[in-house]
């Protein structure tokens, strides 16, 4: 197990280095002079020169790269062009909001997906299965930037049950979480169905039924329990999609998280902040995938022996 752990950790290092390199090169992909782009066309040459110096763009590329990596390792991602505050501080302040939204969306997704997947698998080939899977495919197809405003109209404006935007109480969390969680629920429902169908074909389920165990118990206590391992992996792997979806959901519901900060920073051409947000989300994604792999290695010994 230790060898597997070390090997998996070592494999992550070049990926993280590649991620940092790509994020570093983002600012150099800006057409023309990034400093000019940030300050606008009417900026004075001395202001542009000063910003170039502050951003380190006047130094050789290799030196800029090494400095970026050295600072990134210590958590120093520079200062926001717009506010002058350290990028890391501004991002860290918003982590709880995004984490809260992501976890809530995942809970919503699981609460919808598992019953839907179970119904589809148990009544396979019936109208219930067809209906549940069509609903699931529709869920993947409905864009959250369309669903969000519609939910807000119905539940916040017309019915007045929930607040339309912002963060504070549990009620504020409902609409963004449902809007973000629905697409994930659709994917998970399909996975639950597929995974449960495989388990239901296993001999131990038939044996349980032969022993007189009721169908409901055989499904929930035996088959569903065993189909949870691959499902948990899918949930973790969908974390990236949730983080990307959060960028849009946070923008719609004025949720003060990293996604909204990223979009606002793009609007202000605050490139250091854009780099910081992208780097943090990518590193989080890589870390979650790493943890998932390690957990899977613990749960299934065949993985770590490969």
């Amino acid at each position, binding site marked *: 197990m230790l060898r597997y752990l070390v090997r998996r950790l070592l494999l992550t290092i070049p990926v993280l280095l590649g991620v940092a390199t790509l994020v570093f090169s983002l600012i150099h992909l800006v057409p023309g002079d990034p400093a000019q782009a940030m300050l606008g066309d009417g900026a004075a040459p001395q202001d542009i020169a000063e910003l170039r110096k502050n951003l380190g763009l006047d130094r050789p590329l290799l030196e800029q790269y090494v400095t970026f990596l050295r600072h990134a390792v210590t958590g120093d991602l520079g200062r926001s062009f717009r506010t002058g505050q350290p990028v890391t501080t501004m991002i860290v302040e918003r982590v709880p909001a995004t984490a809260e939204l992501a976890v809530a969306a995942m809970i919503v997704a699981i609460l919808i997906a598992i019953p839907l997947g179970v119904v589809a698998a148990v009544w396979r080939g019936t109208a219930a299965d067809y209906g549940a899977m069509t609903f699931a495919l529709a869920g993947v197809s409905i864009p959250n930037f369309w669903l969000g405003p519609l939910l807000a109209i119905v539940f916040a*404006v017309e019915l007045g049950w929930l607040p339309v935007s912002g963060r504070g109480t549990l009620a504020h969390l409902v609409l963004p979480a449902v809007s973000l969680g629905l697409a994930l629920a659709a994917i998970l429902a399909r996975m639950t169905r597929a995974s449960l169908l495989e388990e239901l074909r296993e001999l131990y389920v038939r044996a349980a039924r032969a022993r007189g165990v009721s169908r409901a118990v055989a499904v929930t206590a035996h088959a569903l329990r065993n189909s949870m391992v691959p499902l948990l992996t899918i949930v973790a792997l969908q974390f990236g999609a949730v983080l990307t979806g959060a960028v849009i959901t946070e923008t719609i519901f004025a949720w003060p998280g990293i996604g909204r900060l990223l979009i606002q920073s793009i609007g202000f051409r605050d490139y250091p902040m854009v780099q910081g947000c992208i780097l943090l989300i990518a590193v989080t994604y890589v870390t979650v995938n790493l943890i998932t792999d390690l957990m899977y290695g613990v749960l299934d010994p065949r993985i770590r022996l490969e």
Partner: protein
Amino acid sequence: MTLRLGSGQARAGAVIVAVVFLAAIGAPWLLPWDAATQDLPNRLQGPTWEHWFGLDELGRDILARVLLGARVSLIVGLVVVGVSSIVGMAVGAVSGYYGGHVDQLIGRVMDVLMAFPGMLLAIALVAVLGPSLVNVVIALAVIGWVGYARLVRGQVLRAREFEYVTAARALGANTFRILARHVLPTALPPLLVQATLGMAGAILAEAALSFLGLGVQPPTPSWGTMINGGRVHLLDAPHLTVFPGLFLAIVVLGFNFLGDGLRDAIDPHRGSRG
């Protein structure tokens, strides 16, 4: 029963996709209204017999704009899927056929690109390149080719061990001919499924980027831009948001139905219908 349901979905998907393609192509001849004509006195008017989807904030016919938006979406989808699949096929074939250091190098590049949630990298690229339709296509192709390359690499790894490939090699066929004539055709069925589902993904991604103000810029109609523009009038004129979103969801659902149905037809055991 299961197979019939799956085929029904695929057929429904094919019909939706065909209708949308025809409507997008025939938009200028189908409607008496031009997408740019403004009727300011009747701005924000709801659906009527004359304007089925109503008028927008500048008094433009929403149905005409939705159909022109379909053109943008389909063109983006086709170009992104075309470029991504060609690049992915070439890279995946080279990686899988040659193996060794080439495979290792390509593998590491793909690992890095896969380390980003796809849309996030697209947002980052468009943010630095500047909002435009061309940059959206570039960004989506940059993240899109990896999936095709991984798929083709896997297929090539399998196919290069086939006896007829070994025979072709023994007969002196060059690498390009072996890949093009004998190896890549085995990857085409799953590639077709991925391309169909990729159309849905590319159309959704373009709309999302346009919604965020990073994609198609006004006055060019795009479903994402229209949904975003309609948010301001959500209370007094919800039709501005409802119709473009509905069309977007239906088209994406159509491609998903079709892709799912094709997957089930190609490999019934691994299909979503179990």
